[in-house]
């Protein structure tokens, strides 16, 4: 009886201790939750988040007026562009992940994204681009040269950090919040999230979105420091002649990936998890396991077009399926 009462009280008290705020940045909703934080510290954390998100959103936009937008303008003129130290760090990491993922994740896909018009906030396209136009982009291979303070390339390149920008941002925010003394928090940047600590004695509980409706099909108890990143074919898409065309574009073919509806990756490094989720979407059924191994991500969950769930053993132990629409594959590893 006493134990049950303590549990009930703890649950009620823990919910009272959660502060929840929603911000808008990176073209999406940012949910911020803290546990057991007083109002002054919570406000300090919110101010920090607002400043950082606003700065990164502006500076990293490929088609905006910030640093990356200006770099792209210079590259298209055939000029060498100067870069800041922080931009060098981001681009170096992106190029490294591009190589590590065998090109399934890429930072130089801006032209392809532009051709599909998935870069436009007011996306109004309802028909795929001509295949000749896509092929013409492959005629001139990319050549990127990055130094500590400059970047140059051929004029066919538009840098686009969309495949891992939110991951990089979440790594920065996680460290910044930790430096501010925030021990227990959750930052959810439009479905890509990072957790600090726990909510009292409980782990933060994360749901994985059903790829075809607004519900949740699986639950994860997030360990402190984990980031959980999902890439899906339902975020930006259109249907043409009964076929779904979405924003995760295969750098090798110029076409949207086909095998998976969504891929979720858990890893303490949010940038790696974000890039891996994109790369594994593209790697598809035949190659996701070998690529996950190469990238060093051990917690991966992929949903194929039939709703079959392919998961690594480590992920299978962490996740609970709560929808009858989904079943684990019988022969996954």
């Amino acid at each position, binding site marked *: *009886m006493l*134990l*049950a*009462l303590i*549990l*009930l009280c703890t*649950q*009620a008290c*823990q*919910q009272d201790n959660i502060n*929840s*705020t*929603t*911000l*808008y940045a990176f*073209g*999406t*909703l940012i*949910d911020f*939750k803290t546990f057991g934080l007083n109002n002054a510290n919570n406000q300090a954390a919110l101010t920090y988040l607002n400043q950082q998100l606003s700065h990164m959103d502006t500076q990293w936009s490929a088609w905006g007026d910030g640093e990356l937008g200006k770099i792209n303008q210079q590259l298209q003129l055939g000029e060498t562009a100067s870069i800041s130290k922080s931009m060098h760090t981001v681009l170096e990491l992106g190029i490294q992940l591009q190589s590590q993922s065998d090109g399934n994740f890429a930072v130089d896909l801006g032209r392809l994204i532009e051709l599909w018009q998935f870069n436009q*906030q*007011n*996306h*109004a396209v309802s028909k795929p681009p001509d295949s000749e136009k896509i092929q013409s982009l492959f005629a001139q291979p990319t050549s990127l040269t990055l130094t500590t303070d400059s970047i140059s390339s051929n004029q066919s390149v538009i840098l686009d950090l969309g495949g891992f920008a939110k991951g990089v941002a979440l790594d920065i925010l996680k460290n910044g919040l930790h430096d501010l003394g925030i021990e227990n928090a*959750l930052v*959810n940047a*439009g*479905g*890509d*999230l990072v957790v600090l600590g726990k*909510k009292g004695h409980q782990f*933060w*509980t*994360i*749901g*994985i*979105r059903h790829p075809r409706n*607004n*519900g*949740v099909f699986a*639950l*994860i108890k997030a360990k402190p420091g984990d980031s*959980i*990143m*999902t890439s*899906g074919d*339902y*975020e*930006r898409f*259109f249907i043409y002649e009964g076929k779904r065309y979405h924003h995760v574009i295969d750098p090798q073919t110029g076409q949207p990936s086909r095998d998976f509806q*969504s891929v*979720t990756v858990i890893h303490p490094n949010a940038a790696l998890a974000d890039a891996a989720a994109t790369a594994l979407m593209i790697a598809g059924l035949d190659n996701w396991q070998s690529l996950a191994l190469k990238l060093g991500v051990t917690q991966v969950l992929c949903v194929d077009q039939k709703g079959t769930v392919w998961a690594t053993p480590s992920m299978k132990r962490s996740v609970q399926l*709560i929808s009858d629409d989904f079943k684990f594959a019988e022969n996954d590893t």
Partner: protein
Amino acid sequence: MIADHKNAASIPLMQAADWLLLVCALPLVLFITSNLWQNDSRAEYLTLASIYAPSQKILLSESKTLTIHGRLGPSLIEISKGAVRFLESPCRNKLCIQNGWLRKAGDSNWCIPNGIGMSLKTKEASKIDGITY
């Protein structure tokens, strides 16, 4: 066999310790089942956020329509019978409107072109703290 029968007849069906265990277990069972119910509970309020304004919490108990201003102009939000949807939007594709009604806690919808997002929550403890998508 006969001895066993005699023993069984002499011992009460429920001893004091059994009753104590039952009384102690009952609140625990209630606690666990209440957690399960919460996951399926309908949303009680709406969090509405725009790039131009801090998020606001709106109870879903009262049916009404409200206007929120975004990057392209005003979006009309309809609340009815505990559910919410985008009714009108200045965006071109109207994907936010096509997503239809949201009812359950944890559901969310947003209009990227107009910079407006909404998510549904319950006042009670929600089992889910965040959704990855």
